[in-house]
C-alpha cells in the first residue's frame, strides 16, 4: 500500500497543474486545424495532379471551409492563452525545439494561403463576383499565374500542420500517454479523413462521392492500424505507459474511447461507406458526420486522458 499526502494542500485543481493545463480550447483547435489541413492537402494534391475537373468540389468548393476552421481554431488558441496581451511574443521568436513555435509559424503561412486559394475560386460560389478595385484584380492574376506554387505550399504546410497537431502533444514526455510519436501520423490521417468527409457532404457528383468514400475507407483503415500499434507500443513499454494504456483498457476512458472514437467514428462509417461502394444507397451525410464526430472525440479524449496520465513517483 502506498499513500501520499501533500502537506501544502497541493491536491487541488487550482494548484496542481496536471489537473488544470488545457481545457476544451486545445482539443477543439487540434480538430479544426487538423480538418483544415486535411481539406487543403486534398485540394492541393488533386490540383497538382491535374484532376481539378474530376474532383471539382474537393479542389474548388470544400477549401472554403478551411479558412473558417482556421480562424475559429486561432480564436480558440487565443482564448486558451492566460497572458493574452503578450501573444505577439510568438511571432518575434523562432524556437526550433518547441512544437508550439512551429505551429504558430505554420499557421501564419497556411491561413493566408487558404484565404488566397478561396479568393481564386470565389467565382465558383458567387459567379458574378466583382473585386471592384483594379489592384485586387492584379493580385488575383498574380496568384493565378503562380497557382501551382501556391498548391505546393498548401500541400507541404498542410501536411506539417496535420502532423504538428499530434507532435505538439507527443513532445511532452511528462505525460506518458502523449509521449508516442504515433500521435503525429494518427492525427494527420484523422484530419485527412475529416477533410475527405467534408467533400463527401458537399459534393453533388456521384463519381466524386464514391472516390471520397474510398479515400475515407483507406484512411479509416490507416487510423485503426495506428491505434492498434499505439496500444501495442504502450503495452510493451515502461510501467508508466502501461498505466496510461490502461486508461483505455478498463480505465475511466474505456467506454468513451472505444464507443465514440472507434465504433461510431471509424467502424460504422467504414461499414456504411463500404455498403455505398457496393449496391446499397446510403445518404453520404451519415458516414461523413460520424467521421467528423469521431475525429473531434479522438482529440478531446486524447487531450483529456493525457493530462491524467503521469509519471509514478
Amino acid at each position, binding site marked *: 500500500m502506498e499513500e501520499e499526502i501533500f502537506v501544502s494542500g497541493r491536491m487541488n485543481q487550482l494548484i496542481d497543474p*496536471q489537473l488544470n493545463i488545457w481545457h476544451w480550447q486545445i482539443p477543439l483547435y487540434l480538430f479544426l486545424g487538423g480538418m483544415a489541413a486535411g481539406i487543403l492537402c486534398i485540394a492541393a494534391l488533386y490540383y497538382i495532379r491535374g484532376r481539378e475537373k474530376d474532383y471539382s468540389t474537393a479542389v474548388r468548393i470544400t477549401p472554403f471551409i478551411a479558412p473558417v476552421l482556421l480562424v475559429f481554431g486561432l480564436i480558440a488558441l487565443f482564448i486558451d492563452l492566460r497572458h493574452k496581451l503578450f501573444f505577439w511574443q510568438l511571432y518575434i521568436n523562432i524556437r526550433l525545439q*518547441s512544437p508550439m513555435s512551429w505551429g504558430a509559424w505554420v499557421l501564419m503561412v497556411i491561413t493566408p494561403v487558404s484565404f488566397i486559394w478561396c479568393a481564386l475560386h470565389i467565382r465558383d460560389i458567387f459567379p458574378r463576383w466583382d473585386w471592384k478595385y483594379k489592384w485586387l484584380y492584379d493580385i488575383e492574376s498574380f496568384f493565378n499565374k503562380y497557382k501551382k506554387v501556391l498548391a505546393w505550399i498548401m500541400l507541404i504546410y498542410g501536411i506539417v500542420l496535420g502532423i504538428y497537431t499530434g507532435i505538439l502533444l507527443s513532445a511532452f514526455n511528462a505525460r506518458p500517454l502523449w509521449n508516442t510519436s504515433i500521435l503525429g501520423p494518427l492525427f494527420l490521417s484523422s484530419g485527412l479523413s475529416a477533410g475527405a468527409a467534408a467533400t463527401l457532404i458537399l459534393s453533388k457528383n456521384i463519381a466524386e462521392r464514391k472516390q471520397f468514400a474510398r479515400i475515407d475507407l483507406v484512411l479509416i483503415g490507416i487510423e485503426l492500424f495506428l491505434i492498434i500499434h499505439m496500444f501495442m507500443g504502450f503495452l510493451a513499454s515502461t510501467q508508466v505507459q502501461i498505466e496510461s494504456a490502461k486508461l483505455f483498457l478498463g480505465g475511466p476512458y474505456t467506454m468513451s474511447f472505444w464507443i465514440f472514437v472507434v465504433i461510431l467514428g471509424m467502424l460504422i462509417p467504414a461499414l456504411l461507406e463500404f455498403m455505398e461502394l457496393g449496391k446499397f444507397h446510403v445518404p453520404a451525410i451519415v458516414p461523413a458526420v460520424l467521421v467528423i464526430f469521431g475525429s473531434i472525440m479522438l482529440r478531446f479524449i486524447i487531450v483529456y486522458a493525457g493530462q491524467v496520465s503521469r509519471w509514478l513517483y
Partner: protein
Amino acid sequence: MRYAMAVDIRKCVGCSDCVVACQTENNVPHGFCREWVVETMNGTYPQLEIEIRSERCNHCINAPCVRCCPTGASHFAEGGIVLVEHNKCIGCGACMASCPYDARYPHPDGYVDKCTFCIHRIKSGLAPACAAVCPTKCIYFGDMEDPNSNISVVLKKRKSKTLIPEAGTKPQLYFLI
C-alpha cells in the same frame, strides 16, 4: 557555476515552514505554491515506512519546459536556474504540460510562475528562503562545481536520490537518504 539543492529526508519533519517562507518571500498568490511538502507512506501496518520530502522545481539540466517554450520565456539563468521571463510568457501552458514534477502554476496575472531558487537572495549572498528558514537545517543549497561548497560536501558524504531520473531531465534537487 551550477546551483543545486539537497533535502535531507532523514531530518525533514514536514513542518511546512519552507512552504510558508517561500510564499511570504516571493509573494505567492493565495491558493498556489512554488514549493510543497509530500509525505509518502509505504507498507502495511505495523511495517510502515514514511518519507517526507520538501519538493520544488528541480532546475533540471535537460529542462523540458525550456525546450517546449514557444517564446523563450522559460530560460536558463546563471548557475542553471530555470526562470520565466514574465513579459515574454504568453501563458500557453506548454511548460506546465511538459514538467514531470508539476512544479509550475499559472499565476492569476496570466504568466506561468515557479521556484526561482530565490535568485534575488542568492545574488546578495543569502540562501534561498526555504533553506534559510528550515528549523531542522535539512535543506542544503550551493554551487555543485565548487568542491568545497556545502552541497558538494554533503552529496559526497551521503547517499542521495533524485525524483523520476528516468524522465531524463537530469534534476538538480537531491534527496539525502
